[in-house]
């Protein structure tokens, strides 16, 4: 079943950010307003496109709807393939949501703290979208590098020795992970002779007995690279310092970065090592489950132990990553669908938390530090002179600054509360629905997982414990930061900063209100993932567009291989 022909729009989520970024580089350094406007337009278009693709892939409600696109118009095992399915559709929407929130938030102050913020944000989105869409192992590596390169720039955005130090560690860790990724790709290529993910999966059953060790070593190396990105314990010590050092908009964008690792594991593991894979069936499943469980515990204790809100949000990202990975490791559709719902919820809530962290910390500091500005700001044509920090001279961002103190405090308090509910998985917000979906899937009697009983009950318990720890940690932070003593200057809050937080939290509320269709979507996604034959068939049945002379050059045999 394919999805509309010709499906050129499948490539659009990669091309649109790339073109926008190229255009913004050409516009030049000082035209902030033009770049900001262009970026907002492009980001909205990306979001609309992602939603449209998601709707298209889910429209008929049938299983196994895919959008396949051959960018080079080469026959399948040889050319590059872009592949849109429900999972990539979901992650495209989440990436665009995080990108939009990050961009809107940055418009208040942060986007002028460095020259290349706007192009970097678009390139980050391009790398993410490419990683979600590609059906080729080496292209996955290339898009990983694109998104990592953009994330290095975003992490350093704003400067300062803290960020540079965190950036150095982050870059070193990710370079090492990339090298392991390459070695893994080389091993898998050496064994299977192909880089197309569907082709790899279809050739795995035929791998010779003697090569299985090499194949497993390759898969394990790939997994180490992905899991380092996904922040599985013990590969996650880089995350809290890096994410808490990043500026708030960059950190909000990073909330989806760990999910790229989760996505890659979910995609390749379900594709290559399903039930019917013989000797390699569920290869490494126990590592995912137990690694995920330890990660939940690590994240939960980290949340309890952290004093800064940024680190707290970082550990909550770790805990949610661990939850999703552990649930994936059981390889059961019901559990995977709950985990996907939880993933969507945790991306939205995590991004909101990073944004809120800055607003709340700033409110407590009672003094609005200007962002580490480059000295150019004062000389911009539209500003004339540097406006004094305590007066709102900026016409675009009227409303809330300074004067409407109670509204700002009320908004911060309410938003923080909602964030706590969503991150800790308390009713009535979306984290709760995701956790309940996982818990009920765990309770279902399943004879096939008798051996994994201990892991099952551990996950069952840890879902509660991590929620409790998150609730304690976030409530304590709430009291410490928002029940402020008298005599502080009122916190200032700009509309551009409140809006993205409200949008993200609104999205988590919308997930709850529309929980039934959302869960049905996640269930269909999980069913597709656990029937890898659908994906393989969809990729292998893709045919290049024939234009006159092409058939003569490429005679095609019965199996579709030239």
């Amino acid at each position: 079943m394919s999805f509309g022909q010709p499906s050129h729009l499948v490539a659009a989520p990669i091309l649109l950010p790339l073109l926008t970024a190229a255009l913004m580089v050409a516009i030049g350094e000082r035209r902030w307003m033009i770049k900001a406007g262009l970026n907002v337009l492009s980001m909205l278009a990306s979001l609309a496109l992602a939603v449209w693709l998601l709707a298209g892939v889910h429209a008929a409600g049938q299983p196994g709807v895919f959008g396949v696109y051959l960018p080079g118009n080469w026959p399948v095992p040889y050319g590059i393939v872009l592949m849109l399915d429900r999972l990539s559709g979901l992650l495209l929407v989440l990436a665009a949501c995080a990108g939009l929130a990050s961009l809107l938030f940055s418009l208040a102050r942060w986007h002028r703290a460095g020259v290349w913020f706007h192009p970097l944000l678009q390139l980050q989105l391009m790398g993410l979208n490419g990683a979600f869409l590609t059906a080729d192992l080496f292209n996955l590596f290339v898009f990983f590098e694109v998104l990592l390169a953009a994330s290095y720039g975003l992490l350093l955005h704003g400067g300062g020795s803290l960020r540079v130090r965190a950036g150095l560690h982050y870059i070193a860790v990710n370079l090492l992970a990339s090298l392991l990724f390459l070695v893994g790709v080389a091993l898998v290529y050496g064994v299977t002779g192909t880089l197309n993910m569907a082709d790899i999966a279809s050739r795995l059953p035929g791998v010779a007995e003697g090569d299985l060790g090499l194949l497993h070593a390759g898969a394990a190396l790939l997994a180490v690279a992905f899991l380092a990105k996904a922040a599985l314990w013990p590969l996650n010590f880089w995350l809290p310092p890096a994410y808490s050092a990043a500026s708030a908009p960059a950190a909000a964008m990073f909330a989806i970065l760990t999910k790229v690792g989760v996505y890659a594991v979910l995609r390749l593991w379900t594709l290559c090592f399903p039930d019917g894979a013989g000797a390699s069936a569920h290869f490494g499943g126990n590592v995912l489950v137990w690694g995920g469980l330890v990660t939940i515990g690590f994240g939960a204790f980290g949340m309890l132990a952290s004093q800064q809100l940024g680190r707290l949000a970082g550990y909550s990202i770790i805990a949610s990553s661990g939850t999703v990975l552990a649930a994936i490791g059981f390889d059961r559709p019901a559990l995977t669908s709950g985990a996907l719902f939880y993933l969507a919820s945790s991306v939205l809530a995590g991004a909101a938390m990073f944004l809120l962290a800055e607003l709340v910390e700033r409110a407590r500091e009672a003094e609005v530090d200007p962002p580490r500005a480059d000295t150019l700001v004062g000389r911009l044509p539209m500003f004339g002179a540097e406006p004094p920090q305590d007066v709102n001279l900026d016409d675009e961002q009227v409303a809330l600054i300074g004067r409407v103190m109670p509204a700002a405090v009320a908004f911060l308090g309410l938003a923080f509360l909602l964030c706590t509910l969503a991150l800790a998985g308390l009713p009535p917000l979306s984290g709760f629905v995701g956790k309940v979906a996982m818990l009920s899937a765990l309770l279902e009697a399943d004879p096939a997982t008798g051996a994994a009983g201990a892991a099952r009950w551990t996950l069952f318990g840890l879902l509660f414990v991590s929620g409790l720890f998150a609730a304690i940690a976030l409530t304590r932070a709430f009291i410490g930061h928002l029940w402020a003593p008298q005599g502080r200057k009122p916190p200032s809050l700009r509309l551009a900063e409140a809006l993205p937080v409200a949008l993200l939290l609104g999205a988590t509320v919308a997930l709850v209100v529309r929980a039934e269709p959302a869960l049905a979507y996640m269930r269909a996604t999980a069913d597709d993932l656990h029937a890898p034959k659908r994906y393989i068939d969809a990729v292998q049945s893709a045919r290049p567009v024939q234009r006159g002379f092409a058939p003569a050059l490429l005679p095609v045999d019965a199996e579709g291989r030239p």
Partner: protein
Amino acid sequence: MEVVVSLAIGVLVSAGVWLVLRPRTYQVLIGLSLLSYATNLFIFSVGSLSVDKEPIVQPGLPADLAHYTDPLPQSLVLTAIVIGFATTALFLVVLMALRGLTDSDHVDGQEERP
């Protein structure tokens, strides 16, 4: 041939890992470079090690690895070299920035206290 290449990869990897674990930023940079050379050699070796073989299929010869060399790993290596070079250059810039900001070439920006 295989022995020489695998020895070379092994030496590069061990030197690279040792250097990456050192406390000075420049050592880490060189370590990462050595590791990436080792990785590139490794990818190259996946496509069968042979001397004087072309990656072009000749008429009359069967198209298997006994008669020609696999072009794909070579192109992968090329891509990996380009990406590795760019990220190493970026790392170098961050290294210089840290050096400038902290007056120290320690990876943590300050010497370890005893």
